[in-house]
């Protein structure tokens, strides 16, 4: 073998294919779950839509309109088919296209997640690395204890304390994070402040703990010991020998943190009335807004599966063992 082969390395291609297939299978099961779950919601959509004034004829008409008279399988296929083209139908509650309802909320969720991630990741990952390097030092212990504390706290507690101290007492930030039209960027910053702070506080504990574990695993390897025996300085060992190898783990952790920030923040959205996807889904479940619930569920799963895929792919790309084929070319 001379030199690395030019063509796209087979492991990456194989990975994309195999993970793509398994992701698709997961997604397929999710569509089944989501569809079955929402199709079983009590009181069918038609009567929910018409409320008290429902006459049998009107109900029948609406059912026909929504395709509710079709067999379940057919409805499922139609739904998946349309969804694949980005058409999630109309919101049963407001009659607007679901995509129109969803997109601004998705934007809000992404905004909140990315701002929180930008603040959270450097802090949490840096903290995790530092805690691993100075394992069992007072720094590590304090960090360990505080993160354990925050992991133990229910999210709404953090939210309420922040509202009380920063909004009610100090009046620094608005307590409700509803998007403002009048006021521009600084208003946005104020609106995002409290949910972001809560997410940073709650999320950092988890991310930091994962990072610390990942770094410790690398620091315990033979090649780090070897570098030490070679007389390489501590600093260089950490920066050049340990960190690159922990990189794939850190990348995965970061991406999964972002996924968590998009997807798993319902309680925070409720506490601050933040108009994100989670709140939309909670509200839509309450209104029996089937089409929106279906779309939300699918979107959540898609984000989650996609993020996991991305995490694994990045981990693969930074790891030469995975990226470059073994012997020969």
């Amino acid at each position, binding site marked *: *073998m*001379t*030199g*690395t082969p030019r063509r796209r390395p087979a492991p990456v291609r194989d990975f994309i294919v195999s993970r793509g297939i398994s992701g698709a299978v997961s997604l397929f099961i999710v569509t089944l779950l989501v569809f079955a779950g929402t199709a079983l919601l009590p009181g069918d959509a038609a009567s929910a839509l018409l409320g008290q004034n429902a006459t049998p004829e009107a109900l029948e008409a609406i059912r026909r309109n929504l395709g509710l008279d079709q067999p379940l399988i057919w409805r499922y296929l139609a739904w998946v088919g349309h969804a694949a083209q980005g058409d999630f139908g109309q919101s049963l509650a407001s009659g607007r296209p679901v995509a129109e309802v969803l997109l601004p909320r998705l934007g809000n969720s992404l905004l909140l997640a990315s701002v929180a991630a930008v603040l959270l990741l450097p802090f949490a990952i840096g903290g995790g690395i530092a805690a691993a390097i100075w394992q069992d030092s007072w720094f590590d212990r304090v960090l360990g204890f505080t993160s354990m504390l925050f992991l133990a706290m229910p999210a709404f507690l953090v939210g309420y304390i922040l509202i009380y101290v920063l909004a009610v007492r100090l009046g620094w930030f608005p307590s409700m994070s509803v998007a403002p039209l009048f006021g521009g960027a600084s208003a946005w910053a104020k609106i995002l402040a409290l949910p972001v702070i809560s997410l940073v506080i709650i999320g950092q504990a988890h991310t930091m703990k994962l990072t610390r574990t990942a770094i410790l695993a690398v620091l315990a*390897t*033979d*090649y780090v*010991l*070897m*570098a*030490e*025996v*070679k*007389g*390489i*300085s*501590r600093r*260089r060992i950490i920066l050049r*020998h340990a960190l*690159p*190898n922990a990189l794939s783990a850190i990348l995965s952790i970061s991406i999964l943190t972002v996924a968590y920030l998009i997807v798993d923040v319902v309680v925070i959205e409720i506490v601050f009335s933040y108009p994100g996807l989670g709140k939309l889904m909670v509200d839509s479940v309450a209104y029996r807004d089937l089409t929106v619930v279906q779309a939300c569920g699918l979107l959540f799963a898609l984000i989650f599966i996609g993020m996991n895929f991305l995490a694994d792919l990045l981990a693969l790309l930074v*790891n*030469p*063992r995975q990226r*470059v*084929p*073994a*012997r020969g070319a």
Partner: protein
Amino acid sequence: MENTVLSIEGLCIDARAPILQDISLAVRAGEIFGVIGESGAGKSTLAMAMVGLLRAGCRRVAGKVTLSGQSLFDLSQPQLEQVRRRKVSYVAQSAAAAFNPFYRLGDQVTELAALELGTPAAERRKMAADLFRELQLPNPETFGARYPHQVSGGQLQRAMIAMALINNPDLIIFDEPTTALDVTTQLEVMRLIRKIVTARGCGAIYISHDLAVVAQLADRLMVLRHGKVIETGATRTLMETPQQDYTRALVANKTTTSPAVQARTAQPIIALRDFAAGYGGVSLVQDISLDLSAGHITCLVGESGSGKTTLARAIAGLVDVHGGTATFQGKPLVPRLEDRPRDARRRMQYIHQLPDLALNPRQTVREAIGRPLAFFAGVTGAAAEARLRQLMRDVELPEEFLDRYPGSLSGGQKQRICIARALAADPEVLICDEVTSALDPLVEESVIQLLLRLMQQRPLTLLFITHNLGLTRRFAHEVAVMQAGRIVEFAPAETIFAAPREAYTRTLLDATPVMERGWLEARL
């Protein structure tokens, strides 16, 4: 001594319990100092201490380590690092784990040159290429561009030696550098080490648990056991006139031989014809024709990866059979384990290489041995108890061990339990896959003795897999030599050792170190 590169005086290291006690030694430039000891004796701990490093949890209680005139444990961290960079190198047991998977080999090998001298990249590539050439690595110019996972174990080990040479050290520490390699590669690495030390005139520490290897390489020897020095001296003196019982036992000419056996019966107990087996459609062993004679010991030898285990497991029904025929006592052997009748499963017992993994840590010895009794023969209660005690006596273990968990037993004891468990089924054939290779030489010998005694007591046939040709020579009735999934030679032991027919068999025999003086020199 003026040209002493390393001296250790009264070194004691504790973790929770003492690991090293009162170690003293001195190594001169140009000599190879051998350290021999069983697993866990403290060899690696000692090697680390030689570069002033203590593993996490370890504590130096007393003693001094002086390397190139500097007392390592008195130095500041930067000074210590400098000494490590300039004066000493270390070759680890597992090269695969000791190379950073993230960087190319060339960069890792020349990292110190870049750090210490600021050598530019182009020059470093040349340096590395020269070293690779010296170490007879393939394509020395481009070898450095590979990642660790792209080269073989033996090549990696040599790359590690190259890395050790880059800083022209006063002392190189080899910590079991050949343990993970097969005999032919081992011989090459041994030759290299000898050549380098002679050529460069540096001092070397060679650590191993294999007396034959150390005896060939080292000028002086130290025997380490349970963290204590048993004996130190010139290799020749030590080999010829050992002072301590332990050393004597190590050195002793192994006298056991195979038990006298009946002539080969016409009807083999197991017969394979054109047998092929493997995983997932790929045949890893092919064209196997082999007869196991009742009451005989058949040794299966061959280098690592040649398919020994695969073949044994195929016979046991654990690997898919792809073709050929197999008979057991004249009747066809059902390929799939699950399809075999219970009695067939009983009559053939398999003993694994690593007793640690073969015993369920959450079952007492009584449960482990008692289960086959209950399962195959339905023996329970008092009858079972009597059988259990008998089996413990058979494998020469105290009856109290019945209530112990495997965790509190030594490796040799565990392997005896595994043997007892196999015997509990009252088998006719025992398949032993390297059952002694994880054990220390003395323990290995006692287990072999046990097997031989058992064979005299009951009608047992043994298929014994090993890579230890010395053992095979003393012990086997027939030998089958495997290479690349085929049996290249199958003959009575005397024939194989006296007049090997195949070139491969000869290479294998030739590369196996023996304790005779001058063996390595003859092969340089």
